[in-house]
């Protein structure tokens, strides 16, 4: 468990370090993007405690997110999109919405459903532990 927060901290600190060290701002952003994308996934892993979710799905999700971000950055860096063709603009929109929006929604929702179904204790079990007031 202690390693997971360490990973989260590394994920938070690294973009700042990279951004500080890199002489080229675009390079700093490019390097820090995968780490920013990985942070939510790492927090989900922390949230699962010792009973881990199906790891491959999360890993796939992370790879999908980061690779799409990198593709977008690549597009941004090497293509002149000031006046894109309708096709180029559509590619950008589809990558953003499908890759960053819909795909994670389905992947995270499905993974959570599978994991949660077998993890949460019944309310009866917890009520036996009832304590005091909130504050």
């Amino acid at each position: 468990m202690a390693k997971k927060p360490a990973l989260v901290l590394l994920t938070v600190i690294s973009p700042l370090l990279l951004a500080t060290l890199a002489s080229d701002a675009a390079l700093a952003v490019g390097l820090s993007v995968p780490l920013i994308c990985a942070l939510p996934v790492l927090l989900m892993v922390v949230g699962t405690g010792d009973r881990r979710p199906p790891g491959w799905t999360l890993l796939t999700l992370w790879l999908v997110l980061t690779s799409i971000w990198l593709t977008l950055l690549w597009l941004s860096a090497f293509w002149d999109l000031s006046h894109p063709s309708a096709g180029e603009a559509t590619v950008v929109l589809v990558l953003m919405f499908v890759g960053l929006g819909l795909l994670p929604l389905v992947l995270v929702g499905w993974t959570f459903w599978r994991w949660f179904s077998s993890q949460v204790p019944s309310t009866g079990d917890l009520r036996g532990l009832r304590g005091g007031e909130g504050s």
Partner: protein
Amino acid sequence: MTLLLTVASLAVVTAIGFWSFRRTRTPRDFFIAGQGVGLWATAMATMAAAFSGFVFLGGPGLTYQMGVGSLAIVLPVGFTAGLLCWSVARRLRLLAEVREVFTIPDAIACRFESRPTTALTILAVVVGTIGYLGAQFLALAILLQSLFDTRQLLGPWSLSVALLAGLAIVVLYSVLGGMVAGIYTDMVQGILMLVAALLVFSRALWVSGGPEAMVESISRSEQFRGFFDPMGSGQSVTVLGFFLVFGIGVLGQPHMLHKFYMMKDPQQLRWMPMILGGSQALCLLIWVGLGLAVPALVAQGRLAPLVLADEAAPRFLLEFGPPALTGLVVAAVLAAIMSTADSFLNIGSAALVRDLPRLFGKNGSQRLVHARWATLGIALAAAGLALTYGDLVALMGTFAFGTLGAALAPVFALGLNWKRVTATAATASIATGLTASLSLEMVRRLSPSGTLAEIGLAAGALPSAVALVTSLSVLMIVSWLTGGNKRSEIAGDVLAVMES
């Protein structure tokens, strides 16, 4: 027709408020709806509370101004509902099984048993409430200003008068029905928002000639040069900051977290990411649809360039929406603003009149009177902030969302999962997040360039993103420095929840 539909929807919502009021008998009913709310009602109410004037008015305005880079705010919706359930909602709901927790500071009190930590949580909730309500008032003022064309009549006083009118509507609604209406009005408002979002999205596609014509006219226009660059006309660090703040900051939003206490059956949480995330994605179609359609219509010469970017949604509705649709959408925008406003007024006044006295061992004998005064005080402070902010609704919303995220997200995301987080670390983290967000925002607004470049940060850096990263780092570093094996210092029932 527009006015009729708007008044009718407000009447329905107020009627539900009174119906709910009649069923409210105990503090448990008042604060967490008797903990008897079903899955769909919780999901819809959470969506309605989360989405506000920020999404319906601010979003299209921001996209009009900075291109598709603004969609970095929208895109985390693919994983935020899952992240929320995975790391925070599950713990909060289970905590409500073993303890009598009614508010967000209650959860912090149970976990850390520390007065300074709880006091700072209350402060963060109040400050965030004022900021978020300010964004709602500003959105409402812009809507009223556009609908009634008050700029011609009142000149420079137009926005102030519209804002005061908006303030009166929200406060009256909250006092009459909103405060006690709670989750059921939010649910109805959520459904109304979904219907309106789908209709407006379809209308926007139809009017602007379909996706291909829309994309082509924007990409050929000189005015919208760089619109389809993945970062839009914004700087990379700003866009990534949006993604970070809205991706992680969601874990510290009290108006959303509070809803999870109310669920009847914790097992139903398994469906929440799909239902909440799905409904949010559908609702965001209004942002995406209008965000693309309005620039397309301006590029096609069918709509005059906007004076204020935030007027993108009202201008579209007034010029291209049939009266029935405009009425429905105005009702939906009001619903979006009201549901968020009443959630925040409820949480903010509860923090002042319930959580604060309890912190000092007092009960508060005249809570209802105090609650009304607290509601009014918070509303006035929010209106004052909105009047002086002088920027886009989306940017004010980002500031408020980011402040709550920076102050509370690390404590909830890690504090409820990682046993090594100490009360000292939690206190330091909340204080850092709150102070950093407020002071950096002040620096940004006072600096000649309007950025953080003067203090050595990247010019496009978002104050709330920097504050979030800092508070998260502080939480972990101080936990490592002050913690040992903290398992024995956490109450048995809370530990059981954390280990479940």
